[in-house]
């Protein structure tokens, strides 16, 4: 059975377990990282030299980088579905939003999320958090622009391209911060929230 190594509160682990439920892939998950530790141990580093989560072991095939993992699982288990379109242009368009979630959205949300959720109030740098929030908002404006013309990041239907950005969007709407009115982004996020697998792995886990 597919083994997933990584704690349930990591947005990168959440992408993987969410997709597994969307595609009915059975898996066995082990808590690693954060309060559970283990990610700096030699046995984990021999699988993933970066010491971060998640890592998968698929019958001996070791893979890390959460977006690479969901691409791999979508191709293996989701061929012919909206999760792995045959059309290479459609796949490229989804791939762009997956990369964008790594290159832009992840970096911009981190100082806000870590600052307000994982840092004690006395230790918070509110100026830094406010500046990071403004940058994060600019990234969300890019989502808003796209979603004014498209139902989903993946296009007309929900797909792999929607997954990496969504846990960050959940944080945007649930952290106690100022939020601009992005109606298309909100409409898209509500469609994501209606998916049972997203509710189970992201909403019910909450912010921690």
């Amino acid at each position, binding site marked *: 059975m597919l083994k997933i190594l990584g704690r349930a509160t990591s947005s990168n682990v959440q992408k993987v377990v969410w997709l597994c439920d969307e595609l009915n892939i059975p898996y066995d998950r082990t808590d690693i990282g954060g309060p559970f530790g283990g990610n700096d141990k030699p046995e984990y580093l021999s699988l993933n*030299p*970066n010491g971060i989560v998640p890592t998968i072991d698929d019958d001996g*095939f070791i*893979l*890390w*980088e959460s*977006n*690479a*993992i969901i*691409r*791999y699982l979508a*191709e*293996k288990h989701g061929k012919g579905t909206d999760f792995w379109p045959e059309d*290479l*242009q459609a*796949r*490229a*368009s989804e*791939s*762009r939003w*997956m*990369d*964008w979630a*790594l*290159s*832009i959205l*992840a970096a911009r949300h981190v100082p806000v999320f870590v600052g307000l959720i994982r840092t004690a109030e006395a230790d918070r740098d509110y100026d830094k958090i406010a500046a990071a929030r403004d940058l994060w908002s600019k990234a969300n*404006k*890019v989502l808003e*622009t*796209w979603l004014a013309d498209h139902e989903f990041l993946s296009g007309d239907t929900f797909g792999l391209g929607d997954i990496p950005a969504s846990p960050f969007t959940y944080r945007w709407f649930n952290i106690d911060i100022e939020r601009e009115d992005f109606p298309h982004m909100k409409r898209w996020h509500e469609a994501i929230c209606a998916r049972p697998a997203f509710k189970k792995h992201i909403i019910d886990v909450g912010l921690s």
Partner: protein
Amino acid sequence: MLQLKGRINSSNVMKALWVLEEIGLDYEREDVGGAFGKNHEAPYLNLNPNGRIPTIIDGDLVLWESNSVVRYLAATHSAGTLWPTDPAARARCDMWMDWQLTELVHGMVPVFHGLIRKTPEERDMDAIAAARDDWAGKWRILDDHLSRNTYIGGDTFTMADIPIGPLAYRWYELPIEREDFTHLHRWYDLICTRPAFQKHCMTGLS
């Protein structure tokens, strides 16, 4: 004909130029970004709302995010060569391409911008030194991987080598301290023999 928008001294544009040259595809390029501007004006933002480069236009597809551009061009023009058809082999390539975005690039940015695009008065040498150390730690991970693999994706040159190549050029050309990463250096020497890399990526630092 395929259109590519972006200035040639951007490491992200270099990825697109290099893959286009490897597959031998004709294209038209327009200078956008940096000293050329245009990337924050409406016509460009309509194509790419991030205002970043590169962007390609291929028929009905307008595509940005450089690694997705590499992946797409490799899939459409080099399946079985740059783009492995075996899903596990391709997943290993995707993994290192993502790693370039999530890990390797972060140390590079403060070092490169600090030393090349800022004046000596603007430089924060402590920040540059800290970023260099972080960057070296990432190269150490790749050096270990390359002790067991000829290329980043395995035995042959693939799309996985492309996002990392322009950053390796900067690592070896910047005036910084460098650890002796023998496997990384062996791989870099191999990459440097490729005419397409020489033409588009070994073009100085600016």
